[in-house]
């Protein structure tokens, strides 16, 4: 060989890992359902392509975990290992060189045993070292493609295109020969250029797997080309050639100080081989034997070019909550574009809702709101005296409920009794929070909003001539009552105590509650959005309507007749929950006041003056009757 050619160290193009989203889906599925805490190594498959227009991409996908790999045109399958550890600390602190060396030793065993000659696929190995946080759908992973760092070989000048050595007819013969090879023999093979024809053979045809060491004289190096399917699309050869040379020299040590020709086979999309390259490799004289005691290289570099793991955060396409969020977000955006251009999406996203009660009603509301965080608290109730032992717990619960209400913008009352709604109503009124209240009867429901703020007295005197009640002055759940809530569970049978409702009722009431809030938030006046006394009154100015229409004060529905009515009422100045006197008593005396109420609801009747009212009107009998018939029916759930 002429000496005026420039000798260059051969640089190999490393693999670049490319993970299909389905890989993480299968990975997660297997980890959660099969492996669980097991840290065993797993066989997986990866693949690279020898298409000249793709590059040294090394792919894994959902089928990588299959027992047998999927085959695809112009792709080479590689068997590898997944090493997943359970602890982040283990992932960080384990000895990375041992991992790489162990994987390399496996390859070298196949070289020593000559298995690579009969099964060339066993010369390439890869592994993925990973740690996954499955709750957050975060995957740390690091690919390794072990390769011995010896020997360094040189290339005589630039590699040449195959077309400079093979004519069209010979290329066609090469193409046919290659396609006749078994899939397991396509990683590495040989091409022989005879005078008349080109043959493609398995490695074992040229190399004798039975011999420990073979002489180069057995091989006619002038017509024999060692060949591999080349993932590279630049002038440099792909990673597999590095292993090939190391293995060839181990088998045939007298190739040192010689030159060999290696074909890097590359296919174009149209099936042409013309982009394939021929590398004329100069192997220097060396006293070192490769393999034993030789270091292994092959950790992939991450996006920053550093030797370190990569991270895939898959939550946006795997986390069910995120997926539900994005689809509901999309639904809202679509609504805005076509149907309700004035829809304020931010206020919907920003608003924090507190759901008190997590029964069927609470779950239906949560479903419509896509709510997620939960707290557990027993809500103290009027007429349920607190014993000494439970005093501390009661304080804690009041604090818990108060803090939660203060933190949120909207309070949904979805509790199962009238008395359980009292404390949250008082606290929410005191803090000026929006309250949406829903209650169920057997086949009836009530959904209503509470007026916000103090000064109920101002609501008086406007008279029934007004067509609407301003939102702030609407009554609360208790405003129509002239008795304080007490223990409604006392002296009831089980079916009376429990929520026995027709199955659709909770869904309907839950949906209406959420829609009522949505309409309220979208109304330009917000909580001050007025409610009309008589929705059928045609003279009412629809200027009071919001983006999503008018917002009633309350909806009472009856499945029995499939009808609903929209009663509106103003604040009652003697209300046992939202009246100034109650709010002020709570503000001034705090838990001391609460304790009295829990002792007996009568305390409320006393301070609001209802007791007086009863006496003066002598209404007691009639009221007792009304309590049973109307309120109780609708107070369950």
């Amino acid at each position, binding site marked *: 060989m002429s000496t005026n050619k420039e000798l260059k160290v051969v640089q190999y193009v490393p693999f*670049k890992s490319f993970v299909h989203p389905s890989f993480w889906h299968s990975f997660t599925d297997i980890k959660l359902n099969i492996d669980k805490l097991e840290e065993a190594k797993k066989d997986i498959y990866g693949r690279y392509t020898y298409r000249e227009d793709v590059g040294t991409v090394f792919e894994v996908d959902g089928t990588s975990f299959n027992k047998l790999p999927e085959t695809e045109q112009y792709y080479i399958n590689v068997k590898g290992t997944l090493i997943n550890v359970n602890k982040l600390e283990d992932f960080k602190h384990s000895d990375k060189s041992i991992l790489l060396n162990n994987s390399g030793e496996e390859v070298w065993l196949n070289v020593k045993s000559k298995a690579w000659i009969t099964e060339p696929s066993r010369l390439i190995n890869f592994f993925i070292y990973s740690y996954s946080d499955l709750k957050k759908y975060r995957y740390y992973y690091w690919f390794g493609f072990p390769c011995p760092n010896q020997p360094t070989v040189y290339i005589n000048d630039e590699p040449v295109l195959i077309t400079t050595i093979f004519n069209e007819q010979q290329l066609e013969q090469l193409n046919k020969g290659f396609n006749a090879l078994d899939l397991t023999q396509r990683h590495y093979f040989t091409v022989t250029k005879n005078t008349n024809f080109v043959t493609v053979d398995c490695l074992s045809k040229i190399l004798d797997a039975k011999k420990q060491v073979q002489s180069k004289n057995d091989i006619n190096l002038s017509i024999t080309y060692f060949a591999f399917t080349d993932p590279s699309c630049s002038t440099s050869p792909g990673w597999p050639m590095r292993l090939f040379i190391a293995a060839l020299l181990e088998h045939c040590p007298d190739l040192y100080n010689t030159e060999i020709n290696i074909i890097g086979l590359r296919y174009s999309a149209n099936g042409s081989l013309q982009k394939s390259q021929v590398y004329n490799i100069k192997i220097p004289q060396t006293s070192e034997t490769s393999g034993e005691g030789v270091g292994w290289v092959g950790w992939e570099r991450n996006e920053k070019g550093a030797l370190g793991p990569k*991270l895939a955060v898959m939550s946006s396409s795997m986390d069910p909550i995120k997926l539900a969020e994005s*689809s509901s977000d999309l639904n809202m955006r679509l609504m805005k574009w076509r149907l309700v251009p004035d829809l304020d999406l931010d206020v919907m996203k920003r608003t924090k809702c507190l759901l008190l009660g997590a029964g069927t009603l609470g779950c239906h509301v949560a479903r419509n709101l896509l709510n997620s965080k939960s707290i557990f608290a027993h809500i103290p109730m009027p007429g349920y005296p607190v014993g000494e032992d439970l005093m501390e717990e009661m304080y804690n619960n009041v604090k818990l409920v108060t803090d939660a209400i203060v933190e949120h913008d909207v309070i949904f009352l979805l509790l199962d009794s009238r008395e359980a709604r009292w404390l949250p109503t008082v606290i929410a009124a005191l803090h000026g929070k929006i309250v949406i209240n829903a209650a169920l009867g057997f086949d009836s429901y009530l959904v209503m909003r509470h007026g916000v703020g103090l000064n109920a007295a101002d609501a008086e005197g406007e008279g029934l001539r007004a067509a609407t009640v301003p939102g702030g002055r609407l009554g609360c759940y208790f405003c129509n009552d002239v008795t304080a809530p007490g223990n409604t569970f006392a002296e009831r049978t089980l079916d009376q105590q429990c929520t026995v409702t027709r199955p659709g009722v909770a869904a309907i009431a839950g949906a209406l509650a959420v829609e009522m809030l949505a309409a309220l938030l979208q109304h330009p006046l917000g909580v001050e959005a007025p409610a009309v006394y008589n929705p059928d009154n045609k003279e009412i100015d629809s200027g009071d309507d919001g983006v999503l229409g008018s917002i009633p004060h309350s909806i009472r529905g009856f499945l029995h007749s499939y009808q609903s009515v929209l009663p509106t009422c103003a604040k009652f100045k003697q209300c046992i929950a939202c009246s100034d006197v109650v709010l002020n008593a709570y503000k001034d005396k705090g838990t001391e006041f609460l304790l009295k109420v829990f002792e007996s609801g009568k305390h409320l009747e006393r301070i609001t003056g209802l007791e007086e009212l009863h006496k003066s009107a002598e209404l007691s009998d009639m009221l007792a009757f009304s309590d049973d018939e109307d309120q109780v029916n609708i107070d369950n759930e």
Partner: protein
Amino acid sequence: MDEFGITVEEFINAINEFKNVSDQINDGWRIYENKNEIHKSYLKKESFINFDLQGELTLCKVEYNIFYNISYAVPSFSFNVWKSNGTLLTLEEIRQLSFIHIKREDFYSVITQQEHPLFGRPYFIMHPCHTAKLLAQFKLNSRNIIVTFLSLITPLLKLELPLEYGL
């Protein structure tokens, strides 16, 4: 307008014909046949594309599928684009790549991300409700309904459809 719809058998024939042409011109479409549930057979093509993501050229993989929508009895189109770590590009990213040429409002009403009926993972799926209307106008003149269908989509997507399909 006449009702439009093709049977599963028509769909299968059309994707087979289409795949034959694709093979001849190496366009890379593959058929994934489901012998037990024939309507779940589909066409798939994958390719690598370099995208400019925030000023950085990023290698992404794009997957296209043509599958049968049993409710609308029309071919349906879905796709996904992901980066090397497997994370999907968002719809907004894809739109901004001018990978798709369409106004924002129209875009979201035509393409939505949803769980794919065949793969059970999120994909961008072109809503089939307009497909029937559009295809109805071409049914009589269409030699292959898949080609006609794709030619209706290609103005939206940067999905080159070689002329050979029409020959």
